[in-house]
């Protein structure tokens, strides 16, 4: 079936099998390979993107369900001048990534969290990440990164 998804501001239109998962549409049709597949039970969150502004696990959304909708992946986070989003900057500053495989999903989950809860506590951050697994970092620096990014993320949203 024909599916049209706006991805990072660009319309991507393709004829794909009905069962195409959104994550594969993004990786193989839109050629945005940053978003990764880490599991097959909707458990790990590596595939997290924003769908109409809210974090979703793109492995558990059909491309057909995203037809006519807006998706943002980590590749679309930089601002118009190419500067990293405050969350991306904070992940580097706080060493919130090692192998990088969970990172795109983790960053999008963080962006969505700060969108909905601009000044979270540490406990709220940890709880919000229960669906995003990382094997490398132990989460310590990921949490620090998100907490430190909160004020700047808030500012960027209002500007």
């Amino acid at each position, binding site marked *: 079936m024909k599916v049209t998804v706006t991805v990072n501001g660009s319309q991507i239109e393709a004829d794909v*099998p009905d*069962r*195409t998962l959104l994550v594969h549409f993004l*990786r193989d049709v839109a*050629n945005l*390979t*940053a*978003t*990764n*597949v*880490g*599991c*097959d*039970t909707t*458990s*790990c969150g*590596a595939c997290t993107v924003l769908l109409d502004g809210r974090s979703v696990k793109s492995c558990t959304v059909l491309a057909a369900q995203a037809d006519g909708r807006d998706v943002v992946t*980590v*590749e679309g*986070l*930089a601002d118009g001048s190419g500067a*990293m989003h405050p969350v*991306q900057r904070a*992940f*580097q*500053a706080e*060493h919130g*990534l*090692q*192998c*990088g*495989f*969970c*990172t*795109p999903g983790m*960053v999008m989950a963080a962006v969505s969290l700060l969108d909905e809860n601009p000044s979270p506590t*540490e406990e709220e*951050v*940890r*709880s919000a*990440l*229960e*669906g*995003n*697994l*990382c*094997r*490398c*970092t*132990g*989460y*310590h*620096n*990921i*949490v*620090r990164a998100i907490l430190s990014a909160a004020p700047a993320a808030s500012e960027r949203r209002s500007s």
Partner: protein
Amino acid sequence: MSILGTRVVRTEDPRLLTAGGTYVDDLRVPELTDAARVTFVRSPIGHARITGIDTTAAREAPGVVAVLTIQDMDDLVPPPPPEPGSEVIEGAPLPIGGLWSEPLLAVDRVRYVGEPVAMVLTNDSYQGEDAAELVSVDYEPLPAVIGIGTALETETLLFESTESNCCVASGEVTDDAIFDGCDAVIKQTIVNQRLAPMPMEGRAAAAVFSDGKLTYWVSTQNAQITRFILSGVLGLDPGAIRVIAPDVGGGFGAKVGADRDALLVAWAARKTGRPLRWVETRSENLVGMTHGRAQEQTVTMGGTSDGRILAYRLDVVQDTGAYPRMSGFLPFLTKLMAVGPYDIPNVQTASRVVVTNTTPISAYRGAGRPEATAAIERAIDLFAAEIGMDPAEVRRKNLIAPDKFPYTTPTGATYDSGDYATALDKVLAAAGYGELRAEQARRRERGDVVQLGLGLASYVEITAADAAAGETARLEVHDDGKATVYTGSSAHGQGHHTAWAMLVEADLGIPMADVTVIHGDTDLIPDGVGTYASRSLQLGGVAVHQAALDVKDQARRVAADMLEAAEDDLELNTENGSWQVRGDPATGRSWGDVATHAGEDGLVAFVRFAPGAPTFPFGTHLAVVEVDTETGKVQLTRHVTADDAGTVINPVLAEGQRHGGIAQGVAQALLEEFIYDADGNPLTGTLADYAAISAAELPSFELLQSETPTNINPLGAKGIGEAGTIGATPAVQNAVVDAVSHLGVTHIDMPTTPARVWAAVSAARESGEN
């Protein structure tokens, strides 16, 4: 001021954060444009004879390029016939082979759920899943051998020509005389449970065979070793093989080299002449990638009533899964490190390795050493409880004193340097141990539902156990003054590109931004070893350092020529990378000038650094848990550590390794376990059931600094990658037991799930009431 030891953010990150890494599934190179997808057909049964495979329906499915089974493997040299009694080298991490050998595709028997039986090649991965379902395999079930006890007792043999399911046995622990004269002796059986390494990227490989040459991309921790293995398997000259490690999404020891599934992709690419790509699913990964740990241990510890340990016995049985891929290597390391940081005069160790109808076992973060530490740390707490002494006191009384190094243990390990008591004291002070014990006492007095538990682990571990294999570095300074490092190390998250650039900047004054680090391509780096065993900084980093010093010597000669001065009159200003006559900056020449002047030979150095010995980082972990005694639920509220791996080049990277190790260590203590039913069916075969730890189960960690250099290498560095895992697991397990010890609980096996904790508390209450 040297950049070494300062906090430097990673140069790897901007790319990973904005465009994402390029893992095997992300490769969009021209050679793979037409790549077909590989989907494996795997055994759904734990133990069976294969009586037939019918690929007819599969071959006709949409998009199918080929379906391959053992019948198609006629192009490989068959393995040599089994030799009864082939010598097993316990201390070598090599498959036993012979009577215990493992095929690539299953021949006539399957021995674990997940074992590869056939390969379906399709145009895309969706078609692959469909077609794989159509391959029809007839199985004649055999009794499954599950569990160490069964493996030792059953008459069912996994390998028909062997005498038992025990493939390695070493050491004797029958002499009880070592416990004579002990005021107190404790004995305990302990399970160090099976775990799934579960890197976020599973196994993946892509292969192109063209004009007699194989190009092979693989998610691996060592490209060069992979090439060596491929050369043997495919009968190809290593020069005809190029192995490339792209970005790798974690390994933790389970991606050392390439395993049978990944090797099959290379074989199939040559067989069919079609470029291929294979990316396993998580469910495949949980049964197809090697598992870790899986030991049963019996510890016996005896000592005086004032806390001096006189004798320790460790008897290990290692479940190695269906195929002994690592011979006796893991329990060999466990026995080697059995005594930990303690000065114990009498030690006995023994081990056996058994096969079972489960996923094969291999290295997983710590590889044999977490098992050793978990065993003795549990024993210490049991001994402390037996004599009624605080477990911190017992540890302090028995730690090897700082003036005893180098110290050779009764098990044959020579510890290079250490200050164990200081690490212990630091942690106790930072945690406020006395206050915590007081709070525990108050809660016990009140009979609170939620009790407090404190758990300690003091550990020493062996890093770069294969120091003799060394590591390589090639450093080149170019005519434009920039530098390139070709390292044999193979980072998969460790940040080597940042650290190695720091080393070059520190030694040569070339700014990090001008240093490119390359790894993982056998065409560019034919000679290298790789990243595992926490070896990379102390071998690969030192090799970079030595190559830099070599280049510096060369440059001095060239600069002397340029400046028409004596070499001794020259200095390198490492602040700005300028060669000058001492004290005369006006004479300064840049690295670019010097490299250009060096002419055709350029400024290039190749170093293989292979010190004679491994190093021994150490530390102490303290875990604070709250246990709900009505439900058994455990919450880790604090985790305080001092992990000493000698000289720290970049504290940011070292802390990251400690954090990651701690999380995996805590996960073993509290949550994770890979379980099979009696027929060999995995019960935790998806992430819905395998309890991988999340941020919600962990606190932020409290890391203390400690740097006791080694004299084994010029940087004074040991390895930090696995230390966190080794210290964290027993600290948390001990804390959980400690929380309910006043109720009569003496031991709880890991993972200390709510059900296990409650069962222990109920049982203790019931026997207390009788």
